[in-house]
């Protein structure tokens, strides 16, 4: 009968380029709950996995950044819809990963779903909020518009394995960037499961790539990677060690760097501002002469 049925474990895999590969290194590591009970073996990504993820993210950038803001908004909303249907699974994973009660984990998952909805609504508004016409002192049309920076490496928060994760991914892709996400090292299961949700949310393959493994091992080659445009150090810790090393490596091609906030200042449940979007936006300003319609004849 059903109470004696042996359950089917899930093989947790990476999410790269819209596919679910194991680590090319063949390595895994054990993930446990807060009490040390075994939960799963997950891929221990190598630097080669990291490079593959950058290639996938770069390949996806043209299409995703070129999609209409409305389209991106619908895709982000679709992520919320898909999550809503798999809520139970995420509540369980968050509860186990973060040692939360079912009720608290459910609140976290609800907040994460709502966050996708929040950012879904931002995709076609941010340009009007941060861009606009500039009243230059001359006969020129002059317009500033935000554009996505490119490929963004996101080191997901180590503690908040799902709400924190969603809070750093959604703003990056809402504006048209593509992302290589390094999941929480200790609690990667919600991130790897999120990959499965993204794969069924009309999000083009490669827009979000999820790696699990040792943050320092994967982040180091990513911070030095010449085809990465920016890095969010949220999960790099605020001590003088890793975050600083990564920022130094990032200077080699002048990546945009979002430094980690002191842990006690981070309240992932609070409504975010626009900072995590604007950190990965460029401003492009386009000029064109306007000509004039004067009594002496037109010059346009």
């Amino acid at each position: 009968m059903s109470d004696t049925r042996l359950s089917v474990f899930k093989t947790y895999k990476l999410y790269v380029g819209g596919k679910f590969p194991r680590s090319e290194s063949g390595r895994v590591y054990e993930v446990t709950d807060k009490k040390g009970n075994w939960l799963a073996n997950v891929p221990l990504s190598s630097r080669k996995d990291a490079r593959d993820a950058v290639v996938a993210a770069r390949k996806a950038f043209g299409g995703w950044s070129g999609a209409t803001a409305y389209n991106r908004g619908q895709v982000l909303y679709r992520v919320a819809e898909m999550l809503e249907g798999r809520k139970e699974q995420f509540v369980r994973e968050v509860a186990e990963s973060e040692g939360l009660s079912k009720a608290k984990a459910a609140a976290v998952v609800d907040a994460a779903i709502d966050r996708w909805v929040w950012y879904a609504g931002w995709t076609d508004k941010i340009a009007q909020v941060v861009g606009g016409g500039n009243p230059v002192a001359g006969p020129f049309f002059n317009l500033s518009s935000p554009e996505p920076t490119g490929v963004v490496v996101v080191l997901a928060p180590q503690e908040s394995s799902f709400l924190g994760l969603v809070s750093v991914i959604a703003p990056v892709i809402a504006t048209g960037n593509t992302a290589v996400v390094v999941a929480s090292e200790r609690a990667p299961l919600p991130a790897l499961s999120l990959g499965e949700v993204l794969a069924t949310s009309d999000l083009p393959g490669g827009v979000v790539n999820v790696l699990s493994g040792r943050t320092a091992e994967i982040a180091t080659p990513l911070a030095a990677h010449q085809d990465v445009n920016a890095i969010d150090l949220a999960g790099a810790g605020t001590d003088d060690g890793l975050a600083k090393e990564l920022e130094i490596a990032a200077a080699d091609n002048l990546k945009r760097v979002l430094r980690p906030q002191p842990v006690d200042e981070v309240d992932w449940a609070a409504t975010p501002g626009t900072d995590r979007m604007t950190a990965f936006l460029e401003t492009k300003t386009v000029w064109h002469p306007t000509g004039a319609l004067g009594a002496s004849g037109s010059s346009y």
Partner: protein
Amino acid sequence: MASVFEYAPAPESRSIADIAPSYGLFIDGEFTEAADGKVFKTVSPSTEEVLSEVAQAGEADVDRAVKAARKAFDTWSALPGSERAKYLFRIARIIQERSRELAVLETLDNGKPIRETRDADLPLVAAHFFYYAGWADKLDHAGFGADPRPLGVAGQVIPWNFPLLMLAWKIAPALATGNTVVLKPAETTPLSALFFADICRQAGLPKGVVNILPGYGDAGASLVAHPDVNKVAFTGSTAVGKQIARTVAGTRKKLTLELGGKGANIVFDDAPIDQAVEGIVNGIFFNQGQVCCAGSRLLVQESIQEELLESLKRRLSTLRLGDPMDKNTDIGAINSEEQLSRITTLVERGEAEGAERWSPACELPESGYWFAPTLFTNVTQAHTIARDEIFGPVLSVLTFRTPDEAVAKANNTPYGLSAGIWTEKGSRILAVANKLRAGVIWSNTFNKFDPTSPFGGYKESGFGREGGRHGLEAYLDV
């Protein structure tokens, strides 16, 4: 080719700029000697004449200046925005009053034509202060939330190509937002910043709010590394920018960088040739090409290459190179011997790699640092002159057949500061502008600047924006 029009010399009088034989550092409202007594000479690049002897800041002076700025910060940042605004409006007005003097001074110290300092640099400097003055009491409405706070002490390092304008781009937004500043001008062009110090005194600006430290790269490095600096702003080379990014790594210092470029100026076959030629000339020969956003790569559609180049060469033959103080001069002196030798080396490299070099008949003055307007054809993307920033009056001409090819070539650089598009077809302008990875796109125009218009780069041309509402962000804790 013989000049069509002969001009009589029309020199601006230099007596309006009264340059003292020596200048000190400007710290805490006073001119003072360097702690170690070091001085350096600043020369006029068009004549090699020594203009003045200037105190050279070292690490101890940087520390003294940062302390003065820190001390001034509490009071300055606590002033009502409307009061800070009035100081900045005063500064803007005094600059307008003294603009002829400052234009002459800048031309003497920098070597650029008086026509440019008078008609471009100085009007923009005054406008920049006037613009940011108006922001000082309106920061709540700038889109960064209520009551955005200043960062503290800003350490600013600026280049020699637009000495006073770069100072304005740095100091005006910093002060408007309530920060205090320590600014290091470039070692070859310290004078206008020191005259600006005097303007601060005339405006009654509180002591320590603005500190000016003439000096070399070591002083800049000390300033950037100083633990009590909260904000670093740098305009200069990409190599130094990367070094600065490494220095501030792991700190809480906010950083903005405005670095090099290799701007593509794209001319399509339907472009108005005469206008495009003016734009190309302006794009690469304005300020002797010593402009980070210069249009140093001309991408011309293959079918009109001959016609365009013929027209361009004819136009270059009419440029007048010589005494920068002459109001008819188009091309002035290269800023320094060092820069001249860099340009020369890269141009020789261009020839050695097989590109074809051309310059109009052009007599160079005997003293001073000069380089004739130069054009390279048969340039490929692999050539050094198509990849490296030359920062001189040297244009590399490449060709393309399709808009896609033009965009691919334009973007094929680690830089991303500026680009130009010349075509009569509106949809093509918008499509190409959309695809170019550069911070400023000039369509059917080039090298236009305005205090309301954000300026800054993509990729290795740096990050952050100067100018406009966007420029405030660099100096606010947001």
